[in-house]
């Protein structure tokens, strides 16, 4: 669980996006992974091997644990993509589907 330092709310712009269709709010400059954590979503997918839950771990693009579906494209590294207004972020279950 993560919270925003109080000063940030005034220092940055709010960004509206969705997590699994639910409205959510982040701040300009957030990566998708940071935006998920800021919204209380610590688990963003289940693995394609055992189905175990995973969440962001490294936040620098090396661990590939924060994979999510972004605007319909699966297996994107949430920590490497900036959240954008209107973005549709979806958590993932197991293996990626070939058509998304």
């Amino acid at each position: 669980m993560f919270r925003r330092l109080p000063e940030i709310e005034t220092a940055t712009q709010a960004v509206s996006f969705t997590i699994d269709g639910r409205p959510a709010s982040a701040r300009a400059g957030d990566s998708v992974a940071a935006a998920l954590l800021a919204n209380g979503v610590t688990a963003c997918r289940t693995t394609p091997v055992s189905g175990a839950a995973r969440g962001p771990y490294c936040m620098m693009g090396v661990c590939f644990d924060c994979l999510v579906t972004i605007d319909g494209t699966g297996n994107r590294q949430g920590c490497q993509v900036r959240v954008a207004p209107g973005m549709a972020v979806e958590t993932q279950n197991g293996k990626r589907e070939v058509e998304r």
Partner: protein
Amino acid sequence: MTQPSRGGEYDVAVIGGGLVGSALAWGLARAGQTVAMLDEGDIAVRPSRGNFALVWVQGKGLGMPEYAGWTKKSSDDWSGFADLLREQTGLDVAYRRPGGFMPMLSEEDLQARANTMMRLHNQPDMIRYPYEVMDRETLRKELPFIGPDVVGGTYCPLDGHCNSLRLLRTLHKGIGLLGVDYRPNHRVERIEHRDGGFRMSIADGGAGGEVRAGKIVLAAGHDSARLAPMVGLSAPVRPQRGHVIVTEKTAPFLHHPTVYVRQTDEGGVMIGDSFEEAGFDTTLQPGISSAIAERAIRFFPLLGKLNVVRSWAALRVLTPDGFPIYEESKTAPGAFVATCHSGVTLAANHALTLAPLIAAGGLGDGFTPFSARRFHVPQAA
């Protein structure tokens, strides 16, 4: 379970720990032989770690019908082989035989392919097997995701695939259970045939020392070319490079293997391949990977969005005519060579047919067509 024999002496030493070597070692140990398997180390030229994992029949053997028959036999025995391995080791090598396709991108290619299949089956002594030449619409019923460029293809119900890396691991586990003495970092420097047996000197960079055996089987892939002449054999093999690409794990969607694209039991999509004469250089060429990717997308456009997670270049072990060599030495009886570039497809044969023959003492006349003497016929002027 047999015990490794005393003082580094074995009934058989198998030289090479890839798919050919470990399938033979497994079969030899099952036949009651005491076996050592001598292998190189962690980094070596290892086609067994880079292959495409097809258990493939269609199209093989034009020019040598015995090879077509040998291939079909292995395919027929593969299911039982996989069962034996599972019973012994508890590991599933994921063998499936749903029938395989060779899709085609032009009418000329499809016609040429149909002709090849016809000529193959018109050879004398050919053991025929079912196959179909399909037009686009028929093919699309089986492979719904084909792209607009695909004009048709050939299909053979005998074709299948497995998890070839798990096969390698399973065979290694199996030979361990059978008491085979597996020796990594044992690159064989020299082989001497003396007193009716064989002495192998191990390279000093590795373990060093000497291993002795009554019989030896050269299953060393590319290195068999160097080793064979030491025991009066010949293995004129050369490396032919092939690039392979694999994608991230994807929910199952491709239910048949094709020659170029298959989905593994774990979900990744394997995409091949290329044919390059580049010596032992395994450096990846981005342009070749790109051409492979482009072709795969023409076959199955929906692959385009998938992420490539790994790619590699492996070196096929190729004889001048592309067919295997199986032979016992005339001058050093008890020395055998087994080399092929289809170590997955032929694994069942190597384990269940070839190994028992070697254990019993000889290959017999059936293997005469596979002798390397076929390359020594003087060329007509």
